[in-house]
């Protein structure tokens, strides 16, 4: 019995000493860690928005947006933190946008892409393709952004995610208005429109007769054929059947499907009276 008590007390004593020591060290290092993390983020902000005074954080769905203000309370720009699905896992990145909506910086915070292959997303030569672009630009793989062969998945993932995030910024903070398409206001005729797919722009022609879409045809695309077949002709049929664009795009090729829908919308938006 004495033996049992001695054994457990020894272990307990070691535990207590260890807990005491750790709590002390934790007490010392914790504020330093927190301060350092904050400092690091402020420094990143400083490098993109020199002389900023304060920022305000807003979260929309899974993205975080920091609105940066100067001393007079004017908006200097926006820094977003978002996640893109890369080849081997999540890519966390910051996108810095100035007050006019132009991209001024792209900073990869964390990623687990293959070293020597997928990690080109951290190189300046890849990132600077985005600088100066805004929500008016297509930001589409193979159109205005060169993807890197061998690292297609990683680079395409970033490109598509940046396009989505800058769209959100435009709509939420820059007063960008999206035009609601009303098919009944479109005169009869055949219209062309385009929108980004996964690997490049998708160009469609839409035929409207009597205020109804009667035919949709994809004229050009750069998607992978085996995937694209999952979206086409399924999506055009759905649009024609329902006569609106709010169709289920969750196919084996979601991005391509959304691309087709957006291209049709684009074609009709320009044709409205």
């Amino acid at each position, binding site marked *: 019995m004495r033996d*049992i008590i001695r*054994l457990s007390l020894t272990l307990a004593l070691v*535990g207590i000493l260890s807990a*005491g020591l750790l709590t002390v060290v934790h007490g010392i290092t914790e504020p330093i860690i927190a301060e350092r993390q904050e400092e690091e983020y402020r420094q990143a902000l400083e490098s993109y928005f020199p002389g900023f005074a304060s920022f305000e954080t807003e979260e929309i769905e899974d993205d975080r947006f920091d609105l940066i203000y100067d001393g007079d309370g004017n908006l200097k720009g926006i820094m977003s933190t978002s996640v893109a699905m890369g080849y081997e896992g999540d890519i966390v990145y910051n996108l810095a946008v100035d007050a006019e909506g132009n991209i001024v910086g792209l900073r990869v915070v964390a990623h687990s892409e293959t070293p020597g292959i997928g990690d080109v997303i951290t190189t300046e030569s890849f990132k600077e393709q985005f600088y100066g672009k805004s929500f008016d630009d297509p930001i589409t793989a193979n159109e205005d952004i060169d993807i890197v062969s061998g690292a297609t998945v990683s680079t395409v993932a970033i490109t598509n995610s940046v396009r989505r995030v800058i769209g959100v910024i435009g709509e939420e903070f820059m007063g960008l208005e999206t035009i609601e398409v009303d098919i009944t206001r479109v005169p009869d005729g055949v219209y062309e429109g385009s929108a980004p797919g996964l690997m490049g722009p998708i160009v469609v022609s839409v035929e409207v007769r009597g205020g109804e879409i009667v035919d949709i045809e994809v004229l050009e695309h750069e998607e992978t054929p085996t995937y694209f077949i999952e979206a086409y002709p399924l999506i055009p049929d759905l649009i024609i059947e329902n006569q609106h664009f709010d169709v289920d795009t969750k196919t084996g090729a979601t991005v391509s499907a959304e691309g087709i829908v957006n291209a049709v919308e684009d074609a009709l938006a320009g044709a409205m009276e």
Partner: protein
Amino acid sequence: MLIVYAILALGLMGLLFGLMLAVAARIFAVEVDPRVEAVKDAVPGANCGACGYAGCAKFAEAVVSGEAKANDCIPGGEETVKAIAEILGGDIETSVSPVATLFCIGDCFKASDRFVYDGVQDCAVAGEFNDGFKNCSYGCLGYGNCVKVCLFDAIYMGKHGLPVVDEEKCTGCGLCASACPRELIQMLPPGEEGYLVLCSSQDRGKTVSRACEVGCIACKACVKVCPVEAIEMDGKLAVIDLEKCTDCGDCKEKCPPGTIHRRSAIPSEADALAAAAEKTAESA
């Protein structure tokens, strides 16, 4: 406050684990005879299996229960036997451990090759492949399966292509004998006296003399000359009975290929290399 929680949590956890282990050790205690542990510590612990039990632990149990004898542990030798005797408190007779002897002296200079073998480096495999790469299908192949199994570093592969036994280190466990696919190694009681026919070939004399300079050609000269009838033919191979041998050496004199040697003068690695060097010098 945090420090109180921390200390409480880890302290309690330590206490709990300590208690749990101590109690478990008490409840689930397995009765072990202390003598078994002592015997286990006394034996060499090579787990060679020469005693006939699965490992040294099993042997220790068997010894304590009286099932096995102390000198069943062959590698342990005299010292172990004494140590075990001390632990168990009884008189146990000591025995001498045998020594491994290779019954082939056809080294790579004396026994000729039939083809160049470049396959798996293993005697068993080399021997299976087309009956071995040597002209003699009974002789040593020299890939050292016996060397690989030895737990005591008592056997090494000589430069002449035959394994060499270090009698000082050999414990007589017999692992090498059972590892040899051609059964060329025999465990003999230690000693320097007596003569041996160092060949295992069962081929006809003509075949043997073509394959190896020193193989037994079954001429029966030794059988005839032996004054005490200690030599008999086992098929096409002469075998000397060590118990009957009087160490006279007549058989060695009569043996045409020189297969018979006294146990104290079995050709060594150095002898074989010297003979080979002489031969090359002559032919040059």
